[in-house]
């Protein structure tokens, strides 16, 4: 199955609004079965790309393959296998949560009306909205609306989920639940394409990542691949400050001081040197290590370098 390797594949995807290019020559390749993070600051072209993937907007140029079919030509056969949350949930405020889902389910001509109620209830259950199923949606909180939007994406068994900012408006508990949900769906073999402007979120959920900046795709690969592009750091807390400094220098690193006499940090700038080796060297030299922290926060530095913008690291 060489062709079916990718759930999403684009070539030279471009969307121009007038002379402004919102999406510029994007080549995405999302392997099947992955949880794929689509990262970029607000306004970097993520949502426009997703709209084109789903056939909502026409590409100015370029090609899109979703699952097995070209888009938007094969939308009829491809989209039933794709669940989506695009630019936040949208609801009929005068309908109940359940009626909202029934409405969207009816729009898909492939779903069976016989199983509709069962599937709607299962989706509500899955996002924890069963208790509010009969409540009018205009009374829903932002988080409940978000859950309803995710439930809509889960109405039928999907091969691909495209979730645009799925944790928007959710409290930390809700965010955790969504993360869990994504993991369990991924375990079932569903490919999940998550867009976010939150680095931490993507880092926690995704095995692969693509980074958008100002309409262009600036990086794409596994987390490790991207990390390797930058450098990891170690942070050592120790009363034996001078010894630690000596050991780190001896390993070829450049220790950095932070004005405290018990904390020392260093970039792992030596090729092949792993944080655990650093720790072993410290222990061997009888340095009393009170705390040792290896941080991949370097990923953030990497993205700042790529996009020229900082990320909202906090959830």
């Amino acid at each position: 199955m060489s062709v079916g390797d990718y759930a999403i594949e684009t070539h030279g995807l471009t969307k121009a609004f007038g002379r402004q290019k919102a999406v510029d020559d994007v080549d995405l390749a999302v392997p099947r079965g992955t949880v794929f993070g689509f990262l970029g600051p607000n306004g970097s072209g993520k949502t426009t790309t997703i709209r084109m993937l789903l056939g909502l907007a026409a590409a100015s140029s370029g090609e899109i393959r979703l699952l097995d079919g070209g888009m938007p030509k094969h939308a009829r056969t491809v989209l039933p296998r794709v669940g989506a949350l695009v630019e936040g949930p949208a609801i009929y405020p005068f309908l109940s949560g359940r009626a909202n889902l029934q409405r969207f389910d009816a729009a898909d001509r492939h779903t069976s009306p016989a199983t509709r109620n069962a599937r709607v209830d299962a989706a509500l259950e899955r996002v924890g909205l069963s208790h509010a199923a009969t409540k009018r949606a205009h009374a829903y909180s932002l988080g409940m609306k978000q859950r309803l939007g995710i439930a809509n994406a889960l109405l039928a068994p999907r091969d691909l989920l495209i979730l645009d900012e799925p944790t928007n408006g959710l409290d930390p508990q809700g965010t955790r639940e969504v993360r869990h949900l994504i993991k369990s769906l991924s375990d079932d073999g569903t490919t999940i394409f998550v867009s976010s402007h939150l680095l931490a979120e993507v880092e926690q959920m995704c095995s692969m990542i693509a980074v958008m900046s100002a309409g262009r795709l600036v990086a794409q690969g596994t987390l490790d691949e991207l990390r390797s592009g930058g450098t990891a750091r170690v942070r050592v807390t120790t009363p034996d400050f001078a010894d630690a400094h000596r050991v780190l220098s001896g390993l070829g690193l450049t220790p950095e001081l932070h004005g405290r006499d018990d904390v020392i940090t260093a970039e792992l700038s030596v090729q092949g040197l792993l944080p655990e080796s650093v720790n072993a060297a410290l222990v061997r030299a009888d340095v009393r290590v009170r705390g040792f922290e290896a941080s991949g926060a370097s990923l953030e530095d990497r993205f700042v370098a790529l996009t020229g913008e900082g990320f909202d690291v906090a959830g």
Partner: protein
Amino acid sequence: MPAESAVASPSRAGGGLGLTLLVSEITVLFRRLRTWAMIGALALIPILIAVVVRVSSDGSASGRGPAFLNSITQNGLFVSLTALTVAIPLFLPLTIGVVAGDTIAGEANLGTLRYLLVAPAGRVRLLLVKYAGAALFCFVATLTVVVTGAIIGALLFPVGPVTLLSGDTVGIPGYFVRLLLLALYVTVSLMGLSAIGLFISTLTTIPVGAMAATAALAAVAQILGALPQLEWLHPWLFTNYWLGFADLLREPIVWNSFADNALLQLGYIAVFGTLAYGRFSTKDILS
């Protein structure tokens, strides 16, 4: 690419006709408070007419006022006809403007349009379903006026065999058949306006704008239709046969208006339907 063959596989359940979507569309339409408010307002027209005539009835037929008004005191069933004559030029187009103008623009405004399309509803299918929903509303709205008129008329006035325009008399069952035909005629009359509303609705994401534009067009067409200087234009106006429903109250029924009206409305449906298709099938859904 060799994978094209795999594309046709996911046929999970039949029903590509869009019937489920149509049922859903109708359910959503009639679950809205707004829809019922409009139907209630339409029902108020015959009630108001009947009550006013009953209260002020002093037996002097003045010859003024809307058609059939003077017949009400003798036969309550005429309330339906008076109410229709009053509702056709203004109230019905207004409510149809609201429903037809809301079809696409309303969904776009809520953002639900993108989820319907991603489902995927199919753009042409959605357009057809939306139009069918608007058409059904036309029929329900008309029927509301007719039926409420008959009920309130029967409650407040004597009823009996109905005198047709030709002077012949039909019994009550025959009259109800004609009332049903009348409701059909008025529904057909409003189909052109619905198509115009549907097209305008694809142009914007602001439903109120589409509603106002549609209702305004109905008013403009009627004004143009009243100007004798534009007589050459009259046969092309979608409002031209709006009051031609009276032909169904002749004996024998004169079908010319019905046929001419249907043909005219069909023309409007074809023109604005294809315009709506052109617009909606090429539109980027950015809301």
